């Protein structure tokens, strides 16, 4: 065992740059479960810059618990077999700045906890990755207003900015009614009046 000592200085980050599209995306990257499969949800949104314009060269990653609230430690995110849920997904934004995941609802990792997706954002022009959380809205299965109100992180954020951390439920459409796929929207604002609350963890 190593004895704890003064932390080593970290290797600094740098921007993902404009040329990641032929390297980081891979087939099935955004489909943690096959699109439209029973019980699946669509988590999607637009990444905006400080002028409100969509960011067409961003990369969004999610990391989440399974529906039972357990942390998944399964291989296979890079080569999806269609059956194994790995909890990790990656989506590059479209020309309209939109990202899209097909996944399952995360369950509460601890009894009574408010479930959320852990989110990482990269982009050309963004010099160092950003972290945030996308909480399930109160009306989503497994979520509740009580759990959201009791959440420590949400409580520590000023009220006017709290909504930037909570996804919203899409209005049903004929397509969503037919497939039964719940839509969750989580827009990301890198800067500006509706700037998303981004997180710093200890050691950052």
């Amino acid at each position, binding site marked *: *065992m*190593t004895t*704890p*000592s003064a*932390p*080593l*200085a*970290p*290797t*600094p*980050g*740098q*921007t993902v*740059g404009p*040329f990641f*599209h*032929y*390297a*980081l995306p891979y087939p099935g990257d955004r489909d943690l479960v096959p699109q439209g499969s029973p019980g699946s949800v669509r988590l999607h949104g637009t990444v905006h*810059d*400080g*002028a409100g*314009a969509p960011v067409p060269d961003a990369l969004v990653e999610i*990391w989440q618990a399974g529906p039972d609230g357990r*942390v998944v*430690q*399964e*291989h*296979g995110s*890079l*080569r999806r077999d269609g059956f194994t849920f*790995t909890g*990790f997904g990656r989506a590059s934004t479209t020309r309209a700045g939109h990202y899209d995941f097909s996944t399952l609802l995360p369950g509460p*990792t*601890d009894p009574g*906890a408010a479930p959320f997706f*852990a989110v*990482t954002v990269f*982009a050309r*022009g*963004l*010099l*160092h*990755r*950003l*972290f945030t959380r996308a909480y399930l809205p109160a009306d989503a299965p497994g979520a509740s207003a009580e759990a959201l109100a009791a959440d*420590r*992180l949400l409580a520590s954020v000023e009220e006017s*900015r709290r909504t930037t951390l909570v996804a919203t439920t899409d209005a049903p459409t004929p397509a969503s009614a037919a497939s039964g796929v719940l839509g969750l929207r989580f827009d990301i604002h890198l*800067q500006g009046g509706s*700037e*998303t*609350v*981004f*997180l*710093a*963890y*200890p*050691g*950052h």
Partner: protein
Amino acid sequence: MPEPVLAPQADVDAEMAAITGAYEQAGVVETQPRRDYAPYRSSLLRHPTKSLHHADPETIELWAPCFGPTDVDPLEADLTVQHTGEPIGERMVVTGRVTDGEGRPVRHQLVEIWQANAGGRYVHKRDQHPAAVDPNFTGVGRCLTDGDGWYRFTTIKPGPYPWKNHRNAWRPAHIHFSMFGTEFTQRVVTQMYFPGDPLFALDPIFRSIVDPAARARLVASYDHDVTTHEWATGYRWDIVLTGSNRTLTETDTEDGDH
């Protein structure tokens, strides 16, 4: 559309020098790039203006996605064998160890790289640099660290390339790296540079890390012990992720068979 008028290098140099001067005056050591770094023009509208919110990592954030042999073919670590012929340029090996802030190896974890070819050209539809595409070089690699945190790639030394940040702007040669740690909070994407690059002082992306000692952590060192006889030159670059918050279990600290 008329071509935008680009600032000369001297203007960008003056902006960077002013920021460096203020940093030295302030006397508080920084280890990461500034997201708000105006000399890198694309950052202007893409950096948060409010300070980051402190979060204590909760359960899911104390774990990282897990990758394994199903995810990565060992051949993906050799970027020189992805086509029928030999790519053009200086064949090189880059290797190093990935550890957390306590020096503990990050075992069996994913490392992804991408880069320009020897002429400074990416295989990307948006790259308009009029340098040749090498039909024998794509410039994308992946590997898993071994049981002691080591990664190793065989590739071609990338060339510097121009970009449109300002007039006559050139990026120092670099390889893009993407790493996962043992927990979510350690995720990082960065760029590795080569020793002695004359473009360092002129590059606002490199210099967005205002601390010179922190910048030096992105520069690989030439290592003759990595260089191989009549085959490839060798570079060593170690990666330290931000400290770990989770109390590591035996699976993390033993070199298990998974």
